[in-house]
């Protein structure tokens, strides 16, 4: 049963990767899908440290970034005819560089998993980023290093010129990397990584050196991060120092958390969310980082398991017959969330408009509604709406939270009985 379920999940995942560009056919969609694939690999590799190993890294962009630089240099070498490697294998060069740099830098931070680890990775990340600015010959300075992926041999006429060809290369890497990282969790070292996360001291008392376990995981994560960076280099055909930045490292943490770090496929959702936010949300609103921050805070407080955690818990509630009693609470949430979001978003947009664009035109058109930010009446009206909507949401949320806790408690009792 479990084995069939697993085959179904992996089959579905593979199928989705294949048909996604057929469902969304525009070239913009293909670029977005390619970026999602890259983000998925990067987030999964980050979660090997964060979710599987309990290591809160603030420097993961080091490895994706160095992988990207290695790949773009290799690509240019292929273009110059000095490196006889097919373009499709270049991300592995990125992977190897990610692996080697992680091997070089990993021993020191992996001594502990706590604050020390976080601080050292932060420092190393800053170090690499600073170095990238100091050596413009290698890192290309502000302009970055450009490349051209249409080069070298063309097996079966595949040049990777059209985005769709590159997408399928990325999809193949996504499937392979996801499978390998999943299999890693089922090896002795993968399990001991969880044990070290749970209780490093006890892991030592059953014979394992926690530092060695963490270090190996760190190196493996470095490899997959490098592959993701390499794919990104092929995708954008340019690598700038931004790929090594603190913001990038922070984004991996943020979106792995939003996707859900305790479940294997959580970072897959996280990668998809990351690209949606960067491409779609940022185009939608100037205040997108604010929305993202609010979402993150809410998630940390209300659903620390992330999106995947929410899904898994609801599946469990469904299979254990808890849904009938939750359905009214859910209905209330569905009814109260949109107006509350709309109210808050309108206020935020009006504030932004007042700060940035009001000199040109005090009227903000939001959701086809003209809102004059120079009139007190508009502010009063919108604020009133937001307060009422938030109040209703708070009531619905309280009701939902109480029933949800009750349902969780019942499920725990029942699972205790059946065992």
């Amino acid at each position, binding site marked *: 049963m479990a084995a069939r379920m697993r085959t179904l999940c992996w089959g579905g995942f593979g199928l989705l990767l294949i048909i996604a560009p057929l469902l969304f056919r525009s070239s913009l969609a293909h670029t977005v899908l390619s970026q999602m694939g890259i983000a998925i690999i990067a987030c999964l590799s980050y979660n090997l440290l964060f979710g599987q190993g309990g290591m809160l890294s603030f420097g993961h962009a080091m490895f994706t970034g160095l992988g990207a630089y290695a790949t773009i240099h290799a690509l240019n070498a292929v273009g110059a005819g000095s490196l006889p490697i097919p373009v499709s294998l270049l991300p592995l060069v990125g992977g190897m560089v990610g692996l080697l740099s992680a091997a070089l830098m990993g021993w020191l931070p992996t001594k502990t998993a706590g604050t020390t680890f976080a601080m050292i990775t932060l420092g190393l990340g800053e170090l690499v980023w600073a170095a990238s600015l100091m050596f413009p010959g290698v890192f290309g300075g502000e302009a970055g290093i450009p490349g051209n992926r249409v080069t070298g041999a063309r097996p079966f006429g595949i040049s990777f010129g059209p985005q769709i060809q590159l997408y399928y290369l990325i999809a193949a890497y996504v499937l392979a990397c996801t499978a390998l990282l999943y299999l890693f969790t089922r*090896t002795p070292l993968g*399990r*001991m990584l969880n044990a070290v996360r749970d*209780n490093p001291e006890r892991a030592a*008392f*059953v*014979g394992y*050196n926690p530092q060695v376990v963490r270090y*190996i995981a760190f190196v493996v994560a470095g490899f997959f991060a490098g592959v993701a960076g390499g794919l990104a280099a092929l995708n954008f055909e340019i690598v700038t120092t931004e790929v090594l930045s603190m913001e990038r490292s922070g984004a991996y943490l943020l979106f792995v958390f939003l996707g859900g770090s305790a479940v294997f496929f959580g970072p897959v959702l996280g990668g998809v969310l990351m690209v949606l936010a960067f491409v779609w949300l940022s185009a939608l609103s100037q205040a997108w980082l604010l929305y993202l921050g609010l979402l993150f805070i809410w998630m940390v407080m209300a659903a620390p398991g992330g999106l995947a955690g929410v899904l898994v818990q609801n599946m469990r509630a469904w299979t254990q017959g808890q849904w009938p009693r939750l359905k009214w609470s859910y209905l209330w949430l569905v009814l109260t969330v949109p107006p509350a979001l709309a109210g808050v978003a309108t206020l935020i947009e009006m504030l932004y408009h007042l700060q940035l664009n009001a000199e040109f035109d005090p009227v903000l058109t939001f959701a086809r509604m003209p809102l004059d930010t120079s009139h007190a009446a508009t502010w009063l009206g919108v604020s009133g709406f937001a307060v009422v909507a938030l109040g209703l949401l708070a009531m619905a949320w309280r009701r939902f939270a109480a029933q949800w806790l009750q349902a969780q408690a019942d499920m725990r009792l029942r699972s205790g009985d059946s065992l």
Partner: protein
Amino acid sequence: MSTPALEIQDLHKSFGKTEVIRGASLSVVAGERLALIGPNGAGKSTLFNLVSGRLPATKGQVLLRGQPISGLAPQQIQRLGLARSFQITNLFPTLSVFENIRCSVLWQMGYRYNLFLFLSRLTAVNQRADEWVQRLGLQARRDVPAGQLTYAEQRALELGVTCASGAPVVLLDEPTAGMSRAETEYFIPLIREITQGKTLLVVEHDMDVVFGLADRVAVLVRGEVIACDVPEVVRANPKVQESYLGSALGASLQK
């Protein structure tokens, strides 16, 4: 005379200016069950931490089957054949009962830091882990995360994770701490059963456990071993009685 399974020679430990262990010496014969008793604050847990490598000693030697182990890391000491349990339950809370035991079995069966084999294919490992789950009486809770077990179940698992590694020398730090009388009564035969053929050093407060389990009793007072002999002799020792005077433990000693 054969080499003792565990020999503690003139061990010292200071925290700042406070000397907690002051020249403790103890020799545990292979295959015996030795109980370590002593009033609160005598340094029993500290002594365990020194022997198992959790804390570094200030001075002195510990020999495990003739081999010096002072200054080694916990995992190195464990690999040389010494396993320990903890007074405060110290498990892998999100891993299941079975996984907890399996983690303890892996190293000794030679799988170490392997990342190219699947756990599910390691039949011998899985079989041994399941045997242990059964011996502990936890088969009904096999797939429950350790953090969700009842206290008594956690104590049983603590014992299992300690012993499943197969180490010939086992240190148990108050295995029945916090258990009810009924639970303790069920627990002692379990300890006896699963430590069979091993050398056992056990810290215990409960005198019934001590006299029900131990071949010999060592008494630690203010960081020194003041007596070590068969229970009847230790009980009659005036120095021991004096150090326990006025305490409940003293009363049970004089019974």
